[in-house]
């Protein structure tokens, strides 16, 4: 039979290919393992103060301290929790308003002078998103002083990127036919925007804004760490006074707040879509 030697050749070629694949894979695993070992060594082994790390019983005792939740603190958390929500909400609203130029410049089909305005918008979006909210907050604390205002500003600036990017993309994808129709009846550019563009992108934008608001609750609950008000500030104080039970109480409150944000976000989005 002529098919047999032919088959043998194919089998050999196939097995050789497999062996090659195996060697490559083994090499890749080896490199990854070495990388992990190196990172653990430099960041944990060399960097930890092993003298200060207590015995197992010390660690357990410390965990015990955190588990003794300071329920007495709870009534005092209403006010800061409310402040955290306010910071998130005001920050989102301000973010949406400051988004408008970034959206207008950043959607290629409506950007007034793309060679200049489009890069400006992209820069705004990238800047907003690539700098951490804590860093933005530090910046605004330096600019306007400690307090909720710095938090609101940080949240607003941090929100621009995502909302603007998603909205600009929605505008780029819109159906151009209604736009043409409103132009044809003699509508000006503003009317074109209100009648032909906004109705098409509003559902997407509302969804994105709600989503961003939910994330902003998360963000604003830690901004207190740098003096920008809210639950984070209480958290910081509990930590500084070594009230471990209080720290856990604040963490619980933050958890509840985030859960609340997620619920609201879920129902609002369900209602509009």
């Amino acid at each position, binding site marked *: 039979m002529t098919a047999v030697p032919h088959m043998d050749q194919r089998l050999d070629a196939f097995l050789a290919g497999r062996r090659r694949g195996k060697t490559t894979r083994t090499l890749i695993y080896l490199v990854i393992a070495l990388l992990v070992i190196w990172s653990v060594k430099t960041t944990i082994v060399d960097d930890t103060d092993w003298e200060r790390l207590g015995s197992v019983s010390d660690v357990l005792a410390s965990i015990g301290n955190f588990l003794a939740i300071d329920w007495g603190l709870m009534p005092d958390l209403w006010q800061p929790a409310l402040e955290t929500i306010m910071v998130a909400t005001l920050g989102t609203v301000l973010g949406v308003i400051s988004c408008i130029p970034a959206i207008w410049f950043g959607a290629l089909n409506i950007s007034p002078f793309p060679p200049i305005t489009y890069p400006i918008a992209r820069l705004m979006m990238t800047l907003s998103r690539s700098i951490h909210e804590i860093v933005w907050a530090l910046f605004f604390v330096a600019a306007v002083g400690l307090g909720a205002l710095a938090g609101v500003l940080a949240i607003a600036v941090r929100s621009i990127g995502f909302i603007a990017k998603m909205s600009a993309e929605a505008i780029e994808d819109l*159906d151009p*036919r*209604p736009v*043409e*129709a*409103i*132009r*044809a*009846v*003699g*509508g*000006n550019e*503003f*009317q074109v925007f*209100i*009648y*032909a563009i906004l*109705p*098409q992108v*509003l*559902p997407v934008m509302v969804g994105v804004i709600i989503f961003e608001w939910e994330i902003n609750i998360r963000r604003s609950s830690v901004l207190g760490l740098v003096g920008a008000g809210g639950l984070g500030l209480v958290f910081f104080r509990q930590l500084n006074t070594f009230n471990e039970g209080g720290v856990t109480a604040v963490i619980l409150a933050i958890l509840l707040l985030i859960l609340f944000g997620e619920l609201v976000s879920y129902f609002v989005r369900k209602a509009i879509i």
Partner: protein
Amino acid sequence: MPILSVSDLKVRYSTSGPEILKGISFDVEPDDFFAIIGPSGAGKSTLIRCINRLVKPTSGKIMLYGDDVLRLGARELRRVRRSTGMIFQEFNLVNRMSVMDNVLSGRLGHVGNLRALFRQFSRQDIARALSVLDRVGLSDHVDKRADELSGGQRQRVGIARALMQDPKLLLLDEPTSSLDPKISREVMALIVEIAKEYRVPVLCNIHDVKLAMEFCNKMIGLQDGVKMFDGPTSAMNEGKLNDIYAMEVL
């Protein structure tokens, strides 16, 4: 005096691109119902879109209501556009808006930005919208969303929107090509009746020669950007049609 007078109209979509319209001239009189026929790609849509400058011609002259369309500034262009109704092949409605809001958008050329923003149209405008909707047979669908309607009904919304403009000329770009044959004839018949009632001249792109022969009283035949025929429908015959559609047969 003609309502619309086009002379030596030439269009290129880009400087290096092919010439799509190669010097078209014609006049539209107040009681004309003009069909523009010709094979697909002949330049019918381009021609009709030049009239209200949705496409900017390369050269030539368009006199509309005594205005030199190609020389108008943005504000005057909007003034000319608001008196010129346009009906599109794919209706071009805002799907997420109600039938009423779509129809009212025909008045935007007459409404300030603030009123437009809050959709504050005058009593007369709303009354007019209701009567126009009655006329096109949509009185039962006023509050529905545009995307809840059938194709024929959507085109009726398109017609109503154009009528809201109180137009002095109607531009129609294949108004029935997205509809099935039976609905096409109904919509075409409605447009003809309405044009008579409102005394509006019509310039209508139409691919279907049979519909054109039946409903229009004048015709322009376009082939590859060149005018091959211009005259009353009665002067059109088999031989001339074959000339116009020669390229398509090949």
